C-alpha cells in the first residue's frame, strides 16, 4: 500500500518520472530504503513540546508573532478534530520538512522571508552588511550615505565597532551576573547597572546606542545578582522565618525559569555563532558571511524584547528582596500585598502568585491558631506573639484551685498571702501571654478580623490551659468541621471561617465562665457583701463589730473579726447563700499606722481563684474594697445617727424634762434631722441609682452573650468604674478627682463629732435632771440617795452647747458648698443627688436668707 503512495509521491514531485519507468522504479526503491531506515526516531510524543519548538522557530523567523499566533490557532483546531489518529506524527512531519526546507533553501535565496522588516536585506550587496546602515537599502548602492562616510572615516582611523555577536555574548554573561570580556560590572560585590565598564581598545569602539542597549539589558543582570544573593544568603542563614523560606523557594523557582530562558537564548546564539574564532574582532565584518542568520539568530535588540517581561519580573522580585531584608514574617506578606493592588495585570498576577506561595506558612499557622489555639510559630512571624515569660504559666489553676478546694472555711493568713502572689496571674495570663502585633498582620485580613483571630486563638488557648476544659475535644471537633483549608485566594471563605470560629470559641468561653465557674454568682456575691447589698447582713455585722472597731487598730485581732463575720453570716439571710460563695468571704485589716482605729482599717474581702480572676483581677478587687470602704463608712454614720436619734427622742420624752434646755434640744433635733436626711439620701443614691443601675447594665450584657472574654472584662470594668466614679463622686477634672469625696468625708467626721457633742449634752442633761430631782426630793425631805457631786457649772454647759452649735453650723456650711459643687458636677446622677440633698432649694434659700 505504501508503495502506491510512494509512487504517487514520486510522480507528483518529479514530472519526468511519469514517463520514465526506470527512473520511477529507481526512485521508489530509494525512497523505500529511506523509509525503512530508522532515521530521526524521536522518542518524544508530547505534542505540546513539539508545538513549542515549532512556535520558537516561527518566532525566530518572524519576531512579530503573527504566524505564531496563527499556528496556535490552527493547532488548537486540529486537536479538536477527531479524524486523525496520529496528529503528532503529522505535525512532526511538517516540522521536519520545514526545518530541512530552511536549510535547503538557504542556497537558493528564493525563500520568502516571513519577517517583514528584515526582508530587504537579502537583496543587499554584501558590502553593506553591517547593521548600522541597513536601513537605507534603496539608495545604498547608488551614493554613499552618511553612515558609509562615517565607516570609511573610522576605517581610516583603524577603528571599528565591536561586532554585535561578541557584545551579545557578553550581554548574556551580564544577564547571569558575570562580567564579560568587553562589558564588565564595575565591582562584582556591589554591582550597579549604571556602573558598567566598556572595554574599548584603541581600534574598537562601541557606539552609544549599543551602550544604552547593553545598559538596559544589564539592569536585569544586576537585579538577578541581588535576588540570587538574597536567596543564597537566606539558604545559609540559621533561624530564618518560614515565610521567608517560602519566599526564597518561590524566587528560586522563578530563577530556574530565568535560567531556562537564558539557556534557550544561549542556544539561539550558538546557532548563530557556531565557532568563536570566526568572531575575532580582528576579522572585519563577520556578519557579512550570511546576513540571513540574523533573521533567525539573536541580536541585542531581540534579546531586549525577550528579556522585557523578565525585567519587570526581576524588578518585582528585587523589590520583594529589598523589603525582606528589613521586614519579617507577616510584615513581609503585607509588603508583598501592597503591590497586589496594581492596575497592571502582569504585576497583579505575579504578586498574586507570589502571595499564594508566601502566605502558605502564614495560613498554616493561622489554621493551627484559629482552630486549636496553639501558636506554632517558631520564628515569630505571626501577628500574635507569645510572651516567653508567661508561656509556662499555663497551669495556675491547678495549684491555686487545690488550695481553696481543700480549705473548707476561710483561708488562713499564710495561704492568702500565697495566693495573692498568684492572684493576678489570671488576668496577666489572659492579657499578656499573647500579644497582638499590628505590623505583622497581613493587610488582606484586615484589622477587625485580625482582632477576631487573635481573640479566638486566645480564647481557645485559655479554655484549654487555664480552664482545663474536658469538653475541649468536642469543641475542637466542631471547630475543625467548620473550616476548610485557608488560603489567600479565598478571602471570603477565610472571613467566614474566622467568624464561625470566633463565635464558637467566645460562646464556649462564656459558657465555661458562667456555668462551670459560676461567674455570675461571684459577681452577685461581691455586690451583696462588698457593696452591702445584703442590708440585714451589713446591719448585723455593724452591730457586732461596732464596739470592737472603735478601739485602736492594733488591739484588733483577725480571728475575732472572722468569728464576728461568721456570726453575722449565720444570723442574716446570707446563710442561704451557697457555701462556695460564703467561704470565700473574709474579714481583714488593712495596713494600719499608729493612731488609727478599727473603723479605718477594717475591710471585707472576697477571694476568687483562677480562672475567675481573669475577670475579677486584683485591680478590680482594689476598686471593690474602695467602694466597700466608702459604703461601710456611710453605713456607720447612718447607724450612729439613728442610734443617737433614738436616744435623744426617747430620752427627751421620758426623763429629760429640763424646761430651760428644751430650745437647745430642739435645735439639736433639727440639725440631726438635717444630717439624717443627708446620710439617707447618700445611701439611697449609692444603692439605688448607682449600684443597681450599673448592675442592670452588666446583667444585660451577660445575658446577650456576645463578644469574647475581652468584652466581658471590659464590661465588668465599665460596671466597676461607673460605680467607683459615681459613688465616690469623683469629678473628671485632673487633680481634683477627690474634691467631692473629701468634702463628704469631712461631713462624716463633723457628724461624728456632733454626735459626740450631743452625747455629752445628753449626759449633762441626764445628770442635771438627776441633780434637780434629788434637790426637789431634798426640798420635800425625802432622802433618795447619796449626796450628789456638785453639778457642772454653767461654764460646762456653755462649752457643750457652743460645741453643738459650732458643729451644726459647720455642717450646714459644708453642706452648702457640697450641694453647690454637686450642682455643677458634670455627671447627671451627681447633679440629681444635689437636687435630692437640697430638696426644694433648702440650702440655696438658706444661703440667700443669710446674705
Amino acid at each position: 500500500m505504501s508503495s502506491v503512495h510512494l509512487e504517487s509521491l514520486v510522480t507528483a514531485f518529479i514530472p519526468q518520472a511519469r514517463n520514465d519507468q526506470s527512473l520511477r522504479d529507481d526512485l521508489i526503491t530509494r525512497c523505500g530504503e529511506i523509509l525503512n531506515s530508522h532515521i530521526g526516531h524521536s522518542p518524544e510524543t508530547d505534542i505540546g513540546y513539539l508545538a513549542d519548538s515549532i512556535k520558537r522557530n516561527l518566532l525566530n523567523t518572524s519576531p512579530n508573532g503573527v504566524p505564531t499566533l496563527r499556528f496556535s490557532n490552527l493547532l488548537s483546531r486540529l486537536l479538536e478534530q477527531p479524524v486523525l489518529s496520529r496528529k503528532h506524527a503529522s505535525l512532526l512531519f511538517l516540522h521536519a520538512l520545514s526545518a530541512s526546507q530552511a536549510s535547503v533553501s538557504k542556497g537558493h535565496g528564493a525563500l520568502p522571508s516571513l519577517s517583514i522588516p528584515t526582508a530587504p536585506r537579502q537583496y543587499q550587496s554584501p558590502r553593506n552588511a553591517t547593521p548600522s546602515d541597513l536601513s537605507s537599502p534603496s539608495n545604498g548602492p547608488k551614493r554613499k550615505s552618511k553612515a558609509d562616510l562615517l565607516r570609511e572615516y573610522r576605517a581610516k582611523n583603524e577603528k571599528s565597532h565591536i561586532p554585535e555577536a561578541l557584545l551579545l555574548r557578553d550581554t548574556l554573561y551580564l544577564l547571569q551576573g558575570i562580567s564579560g570580556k568587553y562589558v564588565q560590572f564595575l565591582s562584582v560585590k556591589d554591582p550597579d547597572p549604571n556602573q558598567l565598564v566598556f572595554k574599548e581598545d584603541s581600534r574598537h569602539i562601541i557606539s552609544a546606542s549599543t551602550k544604552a542597549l547593553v545598559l538596559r539589558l544589564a539592569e536585569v543582570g544586576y537585579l538577578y545578582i541581588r535576588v540570587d544573593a538574597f536567596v543564597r544568603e537566606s539558604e545559609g542563614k540559621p533561624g530564618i522565618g518560614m515565610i521567608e523560606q517560602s519566599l526564597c523557594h518561590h524566587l528560586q523557582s522563578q530563577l530556574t525559569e530565568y535560567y531556562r530562558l537564558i539557556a534557550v537564548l544561549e542556544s539561539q546564539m550558538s546557532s548563530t555563532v557556531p565557532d568563536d574564532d570566526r568572531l575575532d574582532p580582528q576579522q572585519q565584518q563577520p556578519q557579512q558571511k550570511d546576513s540571513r542568520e540574523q533573521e533567525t539568530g539573536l541580536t541585542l535588540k531581540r534579546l531586549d524584547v525577550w528579556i522585557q517581561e523578565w525585567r519587570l519580573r526581576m524588578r518585582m522580585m528585587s523589590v520583594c528582596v529589598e523589603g525582606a531584608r528589613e521586614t519579617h514574617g507577616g510584615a513581609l506578606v503585607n509588603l508583598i500585598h501592597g503591590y497586589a493592588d496594581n492596575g497592571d495585570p502582569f504585576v497583579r498576577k505575579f504578586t498574586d502568585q507570589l502571595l499564594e506561595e508566601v502566605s502558605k506558612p502564614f495560613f498554616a499557622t493561622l489554621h493551627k491558631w484559629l482552630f486549636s489555639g496553639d501558636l506554632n510559630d517558631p520564628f515569630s512571624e505571626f501577628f500574635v506573639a507569645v510572651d516567653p515569660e508567661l508561656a509556662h504559666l499555663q497551669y495556675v489553676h491547678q495549684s491555686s484551685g487545690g488550695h481553696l478546694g481543700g480549705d473548707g472555711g476561710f483561708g488562713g493568713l499564710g495561704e492568702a498571702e500565697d495566693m495573692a502572689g498568684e492572684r493576678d496571674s489570671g488576668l496577666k495570663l489572659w492579657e499578656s501571654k499573647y500579644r497582638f502585633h499590628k505590623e505583622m498582620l497581613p493587610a488582606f485580613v484586615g484589622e477587625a478580623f485580625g482582632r477576631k483571630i487573635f481573640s479566638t486563638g486566645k480564647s481557645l488557648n485559655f479554655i484549654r490551659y487555664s480552664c482545663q476544659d474536658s469538653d475541649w475535644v468536642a469543641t475542637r471537633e466542631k471547630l475543625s468541621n467548620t473550616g476548610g483549608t485557608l488560603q489567600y485566594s479565598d478571602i471570603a471563605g477565610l472571613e467566614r471561617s474566622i467568624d464561625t470560629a470566633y463565635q464558637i470559641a467566645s460562646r464556649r468561653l462564656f459558657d465555661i465562665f458562667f456555668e462551670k465557674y459560676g461567674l455570675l454568682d461571684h459577681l452577685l456575691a461581691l455586690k451583696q457583701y462588698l457593696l452591702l447589698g445584703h442590708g440585714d447582713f451589713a446591719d448585723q455585722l455593724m452591730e457586732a463589730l461596732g464596739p470592737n472597731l472603735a478601739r485602736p487598730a492594733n488591739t484588733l485581732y483577725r480571728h475575732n473579726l472572722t468569728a464576728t463575720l461568721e456570726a453575722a453570716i449565720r444570723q442574716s439571710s446570707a446563710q442561704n447563700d451557697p457555701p462556695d460563695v460564703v467561704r470565700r468571704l473574709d474579714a481583714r485589716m488593712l495596713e494600719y499606722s499608729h493612731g488609727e482605729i478599727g473603723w479605718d482599717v477594717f475591710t471585707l474581702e472576697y477571694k476568687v481563684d483562677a480562672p475567675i480572676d481573669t475577670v475579677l483581677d486584683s485591680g478590680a478587687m482594689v476598686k471593690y474594697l474602695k467602694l466597700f470602704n466608702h459604703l461601710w463608712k456611710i453605713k456607720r454614720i447612718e447607724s450612729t445617727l439613728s442610734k443617737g436619734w433614738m436616744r435623744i427622742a426617747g430620752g427627751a420624752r421620758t426623763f429629760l424634762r429640763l424646761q430651760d434646755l428644751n430650745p437647745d434640744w430642739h435645735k439639736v433635733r433639727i440639725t440631726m434631722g438635717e444630717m439624717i436626711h443627708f446620710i439617707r439620701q447618700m445611701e439611697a443614691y449609692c444603692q439605688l441609682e448607682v449600684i443597681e443601675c450599673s448592675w442592670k447594665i452588666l446583667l444585660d450584657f451577660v445575658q446577650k452573650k456576645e463578644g469574647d472574654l475581652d468584652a466581658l472584662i471590659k464590661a465588668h470594668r465599665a460596671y466597676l468604674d461607673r460605680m467607683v466614679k459615681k459613688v465616690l463622686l469623683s469629678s473628671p477634672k485632673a487633680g481634683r478627682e477627690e474634691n467631692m469625696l473629701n468634702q463628704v468625708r469631712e461631713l462624716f467626721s463633723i457628724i461624728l463629732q456632733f454626735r459626740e457633742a450631743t452625747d455629752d449634752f445628753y449626759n449633762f442633761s441626764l445628770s442635771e435632771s438627776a441633780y434637780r430631782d434629788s434637790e426637789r426630793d431634798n426640798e420635800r425631805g425625802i432622802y433618795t440617795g447619796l449626796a450628789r457631786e456638785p453639778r457642772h457649772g454653767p461654764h460646762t454647759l456653755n462649752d457643750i452647747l457652743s460645741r453643738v452649735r459650732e458643729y451644726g453650723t459647720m455642717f450646714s456650711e459644708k453642706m452648702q458648698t457640697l450641694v453647690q459643687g454637686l450642682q455643677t458636677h458634670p455627671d447627671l446622677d451627681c447633679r440629681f443627688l444635689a437636687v435630692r440633698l437640697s430638696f426644694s432649694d433648702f440650702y440655696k434659700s438658706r444661703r440667700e436668707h443669710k446674705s
Partner: protein
Amino acid sequence: MSRREPDHLTSAHQVLDILYDISQLLNTQLDKETLATCVSMIEAGVNPEALAAVVQELKRENLALNVQNSNGR
C-alpha cells in the same frame, strides 16, 4: 451509517485544510494533494521523519533533473 459517512468526509476535509494551512505557515511547499498522500501514509504508520527525508530527497532529485535538463537543452 449513511449519514455518518459524509460527516466523516467533511471532517477529513477540514483536517486536511488545517494541515495545509500549517504546512503553508511552516513553508513546506507541499501542495494539497501531496500533503494528503503524505498524511495518509503517516496515518498508515510511516515514520514521519523518514517521510520528510523522502520528500526532501525527491525535491532535490527533481531539482537536479531540472538542472540537467536545462543544461542539456
